[in-house]
Structure formats: C-alpha cells, structure tokens
C-alpha cells in the first residue's frame, strides 16, 4: 500500500522525461525561406537540389537525406526560438544566467541541468504549485 501511495504522489517518476521537439515540415521550410528573403532558386542552389524538388519539398512531397536536411538547417542558421516561431529574445536576466552557467565547472553544470530537470518534472506533476508560486 505504501509503495502504491508513493506512486500516486509521484506519477511522473515512472514516465521518462521525453524531449519535446518541433517537426520540420514543408510549410515551415517555405516560411523560413520567405523570412530569409530567399527565392526557391536561391535556396535550392544552396542546398543542392533542383528548384522543382524544393517546390515539392515545401509541399511535403519530396523527402531528402540527412546531408540535405543539415544543409537546410545550416543555410537558415536558425536560432532555436526562431524555429519555434517565437519572436521574443532572451532578456538581460536570461543572458546573465547563461553567462554564469558558462563559468561553472562541468560537474556544477551537470548539477544545474539535473536541478532544472527536477523542477520541470515537479512542475508537470503538480502544475497548481507553480501557479501558486507565481501568485
């Protein structure tokens, strides 16, 4: 019974913390190309595919190998936030945190990452707590 109760209290402990990712799809490639003011001809030349194939790619009909996909990421030189479609950039507080983090030893960095993971799990397990904290 005790073990059962423990599981009830920590439901997320049994669930692996999966990485949430954005899927690269044709329509996103089109948006990014336009955002970078590239024509289909220009982008197709840079990633080494025919223009007609890039057109099919943007429509989700043309699939490519890893080499071409990586060239695409490299051409766009995305900031991850940009890929997610977020417009906000890191504020001074965030930047300071990153600078401090970079000054830590490898071991200390690992501890910080573990702590962040723990906080995320805690937040997912009891979302009401995080709301209370904010208030």
């Amino acid at each position, binding site marked *: 019974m005790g073990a059962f109760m423990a599981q009830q209290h920590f439901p997320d402990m049994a669930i*692996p913390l999966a990485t949430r*990712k954005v*899927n690269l799809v044709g329509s996103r490639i089109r948006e990014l190309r336009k955002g970078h003011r590239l024509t289909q001809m220009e982008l197709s030349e840079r990633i080494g595919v025919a223009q007609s194939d890039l057109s099919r790619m943007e429509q989700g009909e*043309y*699939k490519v190998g890893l080499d071409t*996909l*990586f060239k695409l*990421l*490299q051409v766009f030189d995305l900031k991850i936030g940009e890929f997610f479609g977020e417009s906000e950039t890191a504020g001074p507080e965030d930047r300071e945190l990153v600078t401090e983090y970079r000054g830590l030893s490898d071991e200390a960095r690992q501890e910080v990452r573990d702590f962040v993971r723990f906080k995320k799990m805690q937040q997912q397990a009891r979302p009401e707590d995080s709301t209370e904290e904010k208030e």
Partner: protein
Amino acid sequence: MTERRKHLEFLRKTARDAIWAGDYERALSLYEDGLALARSWKDRDLEDLFTCNRATTLLEMDRQDFDLSGLKEILLRSPTSPNGVLAAYASAHAHEVRGELARATFYAQTALQKSRDLRLDEWTAASMNLLANLELRESRFESAKALFEEALGRLEERGDGLSREGAVVSDNLGYCHIAMDRVEVGMPYVERAISLLDSLGARQAMDYPCLDLCFAMLKLDRLDQGESWGIRALGLGNEFGREDVVKNSHYLLAEIYATMGRADRADEHYEALANYYPDFPALKNYLHQISLTGMLNLRA
C-alpha cells in the same frame, strides 16, 4: 560451354557469393583474376564481362577507380548482347553513385529495354530494381513501388522470389510503403527480407532492412524494438563500412532515445552524427530541438 568459360563462370559464381557475404576484397580479386585470364586468351567477350563485374564490385566498395567511358564503349560495341545490358546497368549504377540521377536513369532504362529485348528476366528484374531505387531517391514513391512490385513479380515467376535478389527487392518495396506511412503494409516485406537474407548468409545486405525496421518502429512508437533494429543496423553499417547506414542509424537511434527520454543516450548518437559535419558546430543543438524524421528519406 568451353572449359575456359566453365572456369570463368566458376570464378564469377564464387565472386558473387563473396559479394553477398560482404567479402568485397575477395570478389574484386576473383574478378581481376578473371579479367587477366580473359585478356591473356584475347577473348574480348569475356574481357568485357569481367570489366563490368569488376566495376560493379568497385561501386559496391564505394570506389570509382575504373574507367566509366570503358563501360560505355562496351555498351556501344555490344548493343544486342548480355554484355551490353551489364554495361548499361553498371553505367547507371556509376552515375547514381555520383549523384547524376538523370544520366543514371537513362542508362537504367537502357539496361531495362535491352534486357527485355533479350528476354533476360533476371536482368530485367535487376534493372527495374535499379530504376525504382532512382525513383525512390527522387521521392517518387508510387512509381518506385510499382516497379519494385513488378520486379518482385518477375523474380517470383522465375522461382527466384526467395533468392537474395528477391529479398532485396522485397525490402525496397517494404521501405516504399513505410516511407508513405503505410507502415503496417510495408513491415512484412522487410521482415521477410531479413529472414531470407539471414537464412541465405547474406549479412552484408541486411543493413538497410534493419534500418528500415528501425524507422518503421519509430513511426509506430514501438521504441524498444526500434532501438534493437537500430543497433543491428549500426553494427552492420560499421562492419561493412557503409557511411550512409551509420549516419542514418545514429540519427534514428538518437530520435528513439530522445523520445524515450534517455537524453544521455540520445546525446551520444547526436554527437556521433555531428562528428561527420565538423563545419556545422551547432548541429547537435538543432537536433536536440528539431525532428527531421517527417522529411527524411533513408534512400536519398
């Protein structure tokens, strides 16, 4: 058949078996012995045959140190003989490896036409398989599927459905379905291929089927099974020096581990993959955030 031809046919059969077992060096050595003998006998027909076989073997070894124009001379010299078919086939393969897909398609169609004219069913099926692979590289999945189906049908009519060649075509057909998100339809073809290739001792040809099943399992969210097939594909890719298989295996395994939440394992494979792209230092960071599986063609 003359004694000379019998001897060289034996050499060819032994070399073919060596290729299927993954022993390319031995196959190359046998074909070069055959070529030297044919030259010493001044038998042009046999010399052409061994020249084509040698070129095909080098291509399997990711080497291009042979004379492509020599293959085209054979094609022009022997337009209505099996050597012409073989020369067209080898030329198509060479252009495919160089990424010259339009030329590759031209020569594959030539090989197909000539093999049909000469009623060489085995080569007709092989040419169809090659043409279908070129269609696959261009993401023309429906067209590729139709060609693979016809190739497999022809092999089955000949009683070769359970051969190594039949297994390869079956795997390719299965991959077509998997790529088109008809995973449950495609998987039995790939499973059949693995089982056949295993029983026939053709380990070197099992890398893509293992990779295909890994991809299928990832699509179905059957991650444990995907991991197992991915590890097998990676092992075979490393063993037989197939860089494309190794890179794709690392990517799929990383995606599987990331989905499982095993970040450290995912990171190992992203890192291994990123090592192939030293001029793109941010690659690993992107891969942690962006999934490319929906746009990925394992045969491109």
